[in-house]
């Protein structure tokens, strides 16, 4: 009997899995690229690891942290911090409110109200909304300080501008995804786009819009707290002022007030959202 060159399997020849890293595997190239990016980032930044992890730095860090305690709780300072907290709260609330109004006004041209709506303004308005929301609130505040001067007014406007971009885009998507039945019925009766929006689309999306606005308020209170670092008033201004003077126990009080304020607004926003979407 002639010896077979290779033992024949009764079933299909099986394939071994490919080796771990080879030319076809997209995930491997992606991982490789990612590693290159990470290594390049660390290498090019010349980070002061030695300085951070040295014993000297640890001691100075320890001393620095010890200065935070005890936090300054004298009544007149606490009242000033309370004033700053109220200013921050007002900034966030008013900024979010203005942004909701402006966002809704911009969301109308930025959305296709119904199939067959030419929506000429859609692309440019979306571009505007993207530009508004790409620029962080702090950068807006720094820009607006030039026109509005130091103080919470610049901070309110900065929050309003940035949040208009965010809310405008969210509102436009909500409007585009609203069910079309009621609007179509009114359009068949010959009503113009404005009244169709007011009587059919807006009643349907209003709970969603309010939910987004309240959710953004939670975000904005955090932003408002730090806008003061560039001079826009509120707790941030107190923070950078006292940190600049190395008055760490006063800084600790301001930080505690910030955390409390954020927690309070989170709770209020959650409660309101649950009440409104009952």
């Amino acid at each position, binding site marked *: 009997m002639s010896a077979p060159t290779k033992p024949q399997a009764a079933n299909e020849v099986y394939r071994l899995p490919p080796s771990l890293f080879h030319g076809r595997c997209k995930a491997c190239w992606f991982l490789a690229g990612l590693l290159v990016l990470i290594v390049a980032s660390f290498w090019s*930044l010349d980070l002061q690891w030695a300085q*951070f992890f040295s014993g000297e730095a640890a001691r100075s860090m320890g001393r620095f942290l010890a200065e935070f305690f005890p936090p300054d709780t004298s009544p007149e300072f606490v009242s000033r911090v309370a004033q700053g907290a109220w200013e921050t*709260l*007002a900034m966030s609330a008013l900024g979010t409110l203005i942004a909701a109004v402006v966002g809704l006004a911009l969301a109308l041209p930025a959305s296709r109200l119904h199939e067959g709506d030419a929506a000429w303004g859609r692309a440019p308005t979306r571009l505007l909304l993207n530009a508004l929301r790409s620029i962080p609130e702090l*950068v807006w505040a720094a820009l607006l300080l030039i026109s509005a001067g130091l103080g*919470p007014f610049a*901070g309110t406007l900065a929050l309003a501008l940035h949040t208009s971009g965010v809310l405008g885009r969210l509102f436009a998507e909500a409007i585009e995804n609203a069910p079309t039945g009621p609007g179509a019925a009114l359009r068949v009766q010959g009503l113009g786009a404005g009244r169709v929006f007011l009587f059919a689309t807006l009643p349907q999306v209003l709970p969603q819009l309010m939910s987004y606005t309240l959710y953004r308020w939670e975000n904005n209170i955090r932003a408002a707290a*730090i806008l003061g670092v560039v001079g826009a008033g509120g707790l941030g201004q107190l*923070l950078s002022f006292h940190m600049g003077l190395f008055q760490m126990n006063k800084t600790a009080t301001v930080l505690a007030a910030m955390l409390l304020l954020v927690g309070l607004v989170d709770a209020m926003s959650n409660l309101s959202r649950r009440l409104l979407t009952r």
Partner: protein
Amino acid sequence: MSTTVLRAPDRDPAWLGRVFWISALLVLLWPLGVATEFKPWVLVEPRNLKVTAQFLGGFWPLTLNAEFMGLVLRETWRTVAMATAGLTLALVVAIPFTLLSNRVLSISALVGPMARGPAWLRQGVRWFLVFLRSIPELVWALVFVRVVGLGPTAGVLAIALTYGGMLGKVYGEILESGETHTTQNLLRNGSGRLQAFFYGLLPTNAAELTSYTVYRWECAIRSSVVLGFVGAGGLGQQMDNSMKMFNGGEVATLLLVFIALVALADQVSAWLRKALG
């Protein structure tokens, strides 16, 4: 036709409620406006208007000379590098804490309620992560600038801590809300916790975890620009410098580069998430 004769109501019952809430809102607007010194007419005061016009006028022409563009590109890279390095360190911070706080990997919880000690440990780790998240990264950066001086180190560390807290919390939520049956089965059959993680939790949720991390990277780029305003370098610091010198052309170029960078990162992140998920 109805059998009883009803009279048409003559008032809308919801009217009073609406009037009340709208009035309450309007009444509340006044103290808010006072507290924020909301004076829109300040914007059009002649002095401010002149300064604004000068600044905006400086926007065109954009500063596009080779030296400045070289600077801009270097700073853009530094911003991206700061974000990437910060997020990598955030992962280093987040992963151990996620594993520690994860209820799915609890062996005592396999048979009845979790034991006291481990439960307190897990809750403590969660509170720690919340603490890390709650302090804005700008505050961390201000603190670190005092310790390590100006430069990207402070920014990288600030992002690492804040984002570590954020990633830790969201990873924990993703891992616990996914399918836990596989992992618990492995634990029941005697495998170690890390083994159960690598063979059970991680493969099940890998797509969602990576998707969220890529999304966070995009946010880290925006954060690192913001941190530049307190001395951490990159595009933000350059913008701060140019604004302080009232150089409208440079500011405009930097803003446009920043918007383009964010749009690019947005696209890359969306493409990556689609490719992975």
